[in-house]
């Protein structure tokens, strides 16, 4: 939105184009985040009362705590694991749909089929893992019955494994969709030409498919990373309360009315996410890739 010395029709049209987005973003995103930002500099009386002012003490407290470091470590661990698995699965599914299913109609049909589980709520999809993974769950019962194990495996549920399983299950679709989208735009002739000139399958993958799916991978990564880092419910339920995340910790702060430290933690998380997303955008120029 460059300021224009003599406003023209084009300029007005530009504003009209962005106005719906502005109307949504300002009240529902910009304003709340400014409130949180302001609160993060306030002082509190410990009973939920905020004293307007300007103090860095909340940030100093958050940044000085070993707890913050541990929470980010735990959250990053879940984020990385989820990212790796959703990427592998998402990439393979998209690859299969684009390059192995010859009939385009069938490919789109199968693609829609991938989205069917996502018509149910996130929470239901997560909770339904519990009877499967529990001590007396289906997997343990089957393993016990076949004599492979004598004691039920406790690591299946209320563990980091369970958290990652639930995340991967919930978020793989966010990888499939953008990767499918960018792969579908790869000209098949390019691959035929590569085969004709003697490229191996690995070379085709390495030199053509992966580089040309980069924008999809980057978009999927942004979705997955920001959702996992901003979540606390899956961690809480699937770890059986045995693990915490950045968000769950400041949710507890809100529970005891420590608004300023919670706000400071929230601002910090936003900054970290912005840094991660800009890093991704630096590596892959999504805008250029999409308009290519």
């Amino acid at each position, binding site marked *: 939105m460059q300021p224009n010395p003599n406003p023209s029709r084009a300029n007005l049209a530009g504003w009209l184009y962005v106005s719906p987005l502005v109307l949504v973003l300002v009240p529902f995103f910009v304003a709340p985040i400014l409130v949180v930002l302001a609160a993060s500099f306030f002082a509190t009386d410990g009973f939920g009362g905020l004293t307007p002012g300007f103090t860095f003490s909340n940030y100093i407290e958050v940044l000085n705590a070993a*707890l913050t470091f541990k*929470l980010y470590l735990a959250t990053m661990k879940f984020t990385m694991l989820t990212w790796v698995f959703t990427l592998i699965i998402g990439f393979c599914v998209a690859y299969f749909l684009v390059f192995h299913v010859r009939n385009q109609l069938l490919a789109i049909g199968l693609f829609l089929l991938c989205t069917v589980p996502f018509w149910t709520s996130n929470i239901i999809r997560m909770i339904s893992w*519990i009877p499967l993974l529990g001590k*007396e769950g289906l997997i343990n019962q089957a393993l016990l019955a076949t004599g492979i194990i004598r004691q039920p495996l*406790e690591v299946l549920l*209320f563990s980091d494994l369970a958290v990652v399983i639930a995340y991967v299950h919930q978020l793989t679709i966010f990888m499939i969709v953008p990767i499918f989208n960018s792969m579908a735009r790869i000209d098949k002739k390019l691959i035929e030409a590569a085969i004709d000139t003697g490229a191996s399958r690995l070379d085709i993958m390495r030199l053509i498919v992966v580089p040309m799916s980069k924008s999809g991978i980057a978009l999927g990564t942004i979705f997955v990373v920001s959702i996992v880092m901003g979540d606390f419910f899956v961690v809480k339920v699937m770890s059986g*309360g*045995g693990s915490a995340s950045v968000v769950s*910790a400041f949710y507890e702060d*809100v529970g005891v009315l420590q608004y300023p430290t919670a706000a400071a933690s929230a601002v910090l998380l936003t900054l970290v996410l912005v840094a991660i997303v800009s890093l991704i955008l630096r590596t892959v120029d999504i805008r250029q890739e999409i308009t290519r």
Partner: protein
Amino acid sequence: MSDEAKGTFTSDPAGTEAGPAKKLSRRTLLKGAAAVAGAAAGSDAIRGFPTIWAQEIKDIELRHVGVSYSVVKAIGDQAAKDLGFKVTMQNLDTSAAINRFISQPNTVDIADLEGWQAKLAAKRGVIQGIEVKKIKEFDNILPIFTKGEIDGHKIPRQGISPYEAMYISRPDATDLHEGVTEWATFLPQVYNADSIGYRPDLVGHEVTEWKDLIDPKFKGKAAILDVPAIGIMDAALCFESAGLIKYGNKGNMTKEEIDFTCNKLIELKKQGQFRATWTTFDQSVQLMAAGEVVIQSMWSPAVAAVRVKEIPCVYAPVNVKNGKEGYRGWCNGMGLMKHLSGKKLDAAYEYLNWYLSGWQGGFVARYGYYSPVPSTAKKFLTPAEWAFWYVGLPAPEVVNDPYGVPMEKAGTKRDGGSFLDRVKNISCWNTLMDEAAYMNKRWNDFKVA
């Protein structure tokens, strides 16, 4: 006066049949009439209470907001039926509720408050004092709440006891007042004593001490409550029981005590003691019913819910011994939000009075919670129910839950015994410590360890 209620109690274990005869007094009839006729009852006029006419109240809506075990839709529906105006029950978890009372006080009419929340709400100036004179049953509320004692037994003050949070000096006071005044901060409506639930078939012995929860024998089969403010008290009860530490006040720990408790919890977690932690009623039921744990801190109705699934489960009677053990008590009451005035305020008083008139007391008794005015609740319970839930006698017949589903077989005795046995063994109350922010941080250390 309060002695009458006390008398009812001490005489009751002798035999429930004495009850009905004694109850049939002129006063009871009046109260019964008030309960049925609600606003129109003549007793209102006698008390000098403004009578609200049906046509004026039908447009009034009261929003009662709080936790699901205290603010129950079936109770609100019955109140609306009896009182003639609209009652909306809205459920939130404890922390969301207090946040809403403080940040959006005008969206709530009746706030569901625990003692510590009442203290906070008063401090923030979002509630107004309840005029004790306008509460018909106030004199029949058990002295646990109004005087901090029962049956000659002083109610402990570790944590924030309901008595401690009961009074303020003026309707707009922001600090609690020590001792009886004309203004109540909140009106107690439901309370209980929490302890441990366990599987008798898998634990192998009777549990009467908190330390069993941290016994290495139950490694990987124990769970603890993950609401920091009260979870830490359950942990404290365990460590005190095991003789590891003696707290000055479990309900208001020093930083050193918090450090000790959380470090010990982290140590236990690293040894794999806890299978999980739980935050909601349903989670605790699932953990026990699915065989994930055999012992955990638990609420009385959750134990009953496990038993309904035909899985043996016992609510441990952790009576106070040698200055250790005891139940963690809690009490939810109703607070009047500051914005209430005029007819709406009158309706709110009607609602508070209805709450103590017995129907609600009978309802909550059927899932194991208590009413602050048992003398009215008794009228809405069958003699068998009264004998089972309050007197602690073996159930003379099958006991049903509030919705009519059979819950306990005839002959079963309530875990923990009679009402007096239980409340006199409460050793601390739900609270928010002075060092809450620090405690919360350390609790998160435990979570992330």
